[in-house]
């Protein structure tokens, strides 16, 4: 397959990249656009470290061909949610609740939880677990992650 120019809308900006259309979005984000907060963990959609929001929904960027993502989709990566000194409430809650150890899975966790809260602003604990259950954390910070998510639910 030959390379083509494609335009991606990432974190509100239009970005042009020259890539093969079947290339996973993950590597385009990381290596062409420098958005390395999106992590490689497995390449098979089984760990969630590479999660990004596509039209508001958490997706595994290792399993999304860049051609799909380019077709007018709104992509948001962890960098699009907030930065040091300007964090989203959920990002801040992860710090306040020590919801990580090594931090490698954390961007994927925050993206997935952000997707959940956008769709369901007041999830029950069971709904949080169901939405998060395919995101893996080998440090085992799960309980603290749930506490962090619950702390930003409105009215909590």
């Amino acid at each position, binding site marked *: 397959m*030959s390379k083509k120019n494609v335009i991606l809308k990432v974190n509100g900006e239009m970005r042009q990249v020259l890539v*093969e259309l079947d*290339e996973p979005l993950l*590597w385009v984000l990381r*290596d062409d656009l*420098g*958005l*390395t*907060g*999106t*992590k*490689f*963990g*497995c*390449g*098979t959609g*089984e*760990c969630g*470290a590479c999660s990004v929001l596509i039209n508001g929904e958490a997706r595994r960027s290792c399993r999304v061909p860049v051609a799909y993502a380019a077709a007018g989709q709104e992509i948001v*990566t*962890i*960098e699009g949610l*907030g*930065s*040091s*000194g300007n*964090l989203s409430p959920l*990002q*801040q809650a*992860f*710090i*306040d609740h*020590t919801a*990580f*150890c*090594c*931090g*490698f*899975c*954390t*961007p994927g966790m*925050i993206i997935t939880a952000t997707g959940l809260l956008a769709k369901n602003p007041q999830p029950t604990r069971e709904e*949080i*677990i*169901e939405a*998060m*259950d*395919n*995101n*893996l*954390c*080998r*440090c*085992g*910070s*799960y*309980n*603290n*992650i*749930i506490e962090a998510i619950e702390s930003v639910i409105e009215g909590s």
Partner: protein
Amino acid sequence: MSMTRRQFLASLGGTGLVYALRFVPEASAKTVSYGAIPVENDTPGCTAEYIPVDYSEWIVFGPDNQVSVFTGRTELGQGLKTVITAIVTQGLDITQDQLTVVQGDTDLCPDDGPTSGSAATRHVGMGFWDACQKIRGDVVRRAADSLGISSEHLEYRSGGVGRKGEAGTLAYAYELGSGEAVILDINPKAILNEQYVDIEIPNVNGEKIVSGELKYVGDLQMPGLLYAGWLTQPYHPRLTRLQSVNMDNARALPGIKCVEVVDGRVAAIGQRCSDVVKALNLVKADWTLPKRSKELRVEEEARAGAQLEVVKEEKGNVEAGLASSDIVLTETYTTQYAAHAQIETDAAVATPIGPDGRITVWVSSQYPYLDRERVFKYLRMEPSDVHVIAMPVGGGFGGKIGNLSGREAAKLAGMVNAPVKLIYSRRNQFQLISFFKAAVVIDITTGVSADGRIIARKIDSFQDETDGTTETYVIPNVLTRVYMAPWPFGRCASRGTSYVQTCFAIESHMDMVAHRLGMDPFEFRRKNVQYPAFLNLIDACAEMIGYGGALNTDEGIGMGLVRHGGAQLGVIAAKVAVDRNSGKITVKHVCVAFDIGPVISRRTATVTIRGGVAWGIGYALSEEIKLDGHHTETGYFSQYKIARFSDMPPIDIQFFDDHHIGSVRGCGEMPVIPTIGAIANAVYNAVGVRFYSTPMTPDRVKQALG
């Protein structure tokens, strides 16, 4: 070989006040040489109690009253940087803005050992703590000499010295040094002052972690960077050789720089990650068929041809003790092969040799000096020509002591004369790496008196080092032997080391002995514990988990005890429910009572302990590397089931550090160790079935329940 003092001082430009920390040898638990870790061998060992024989950490007061501290120990997510920041900012009365913590850079940091064994906080943290106390006095003495004022009238404040009762700073510490290092003899068992307990500063990397800004090694970018990957072989790497290979189609792909056989494996290097993946898929390789049986029978193979490796402990007369016992019980326990399964796979970036004759290697590492040694030996370079920088580790757990990607990336960078980023695929991580947490067979015999005192215990352990066998209970007659057999699959340091397997056997066995005695298993433990402090921990766990209260049908409670690292005591209780139809064991509640000395950061300790429990749950219920005699069948997370959100119970923790004074200990490994036995005992309590092997998967539970 660490950097010499002279080189280090030269790098500072010969200014400032420099302290080199040196651990007092007699205060060291164990002093081992750096060469104790095999470098060439791909089955790395681990010396948890390593204390450097030369200088350890550095503390430097530089211009503008900035303080830099240097340690070779790396950030694994255990919060070491946060702990160091907490200790040094308070120990030297400075702000976080004044402090720079440099970790894991072999050009700047001393070789102060591997980051392992739950020992970093214990050694490095306490070293810095003791140093800070000594530096305060030293700075005052220097100021007194320099200013011609009696030190009685001076006091240390915020990186400098002031006159007692007066505001202002008379001299800053950096002005009082010549750049020549002052050697501080450090007592690693220093006593922690009460005011340093419970320092709740947030993780200093926190903002970068949650915003995706923290750079792990795979995130590094540089001009001209190429990407590399390995082909995964079809058989276990120790059992096969590459016989023939056709790389023509792979090499013809656009974007591919090279596809080569490197040390018996096939590597591809290209301009993009996806080029590399595509190229490796086009490689046609034939591998030799392994020469051993394809059928793997773990227990049989562990026993076959096993040689006595070491008598780990011999005390009293075990045979006479067993003969005089009222009840003697012999059982065998086995455990599975398990993986580290870090979410960050092994990875490194390396440059080719530059104009100065040096290369730089960035690596996900628990021990950058070991990586440096691997690189210079592998490439036959001088040690001083290799610069290793350890990046924050995205999960280590012992496995990133054995990470060979640093030397591999260095070699590949040389081949293409360009910087190379090597990232292991998930299949690589399961199948290219030859070592696991070991499958172990443990024969255990215990003799007790009719009133429930342990009289004798004999343990024969196959393929294990039986760490921690005799540290929990008072036993007058003990014999513990370790046997090793020729075994195809490698073993590696892994969170909790062999305490994990041994404790599963001992704590399961303790329950069975109690059952034979007709004694409550909690009471049986209370009667035999080695330290009175355990009694509080047992009682606390029993109360937290509601032991003795009403249980639903097929629910049960179990307990496990651990003593780790010499002085850390812990008890974990678990409540489970067993579904007889599906065979699924659900862990409903876990309670932890730990006496680990003063807790520097309760929030960090809490998340670490909960994570350790998650490891215990995975190990007890689902984690298993599947091997036939030839091949590692496990290649993906869908086949290797670590604990996930839906597996986690509420985990309540009580710290027993009321004394608040004492030396800091660790807690990264400890919670893994007794959780497995506690779960197995809870299952026995629930449905009356004893599991003699892990993991207790639904299929095995259904089978056992008939």
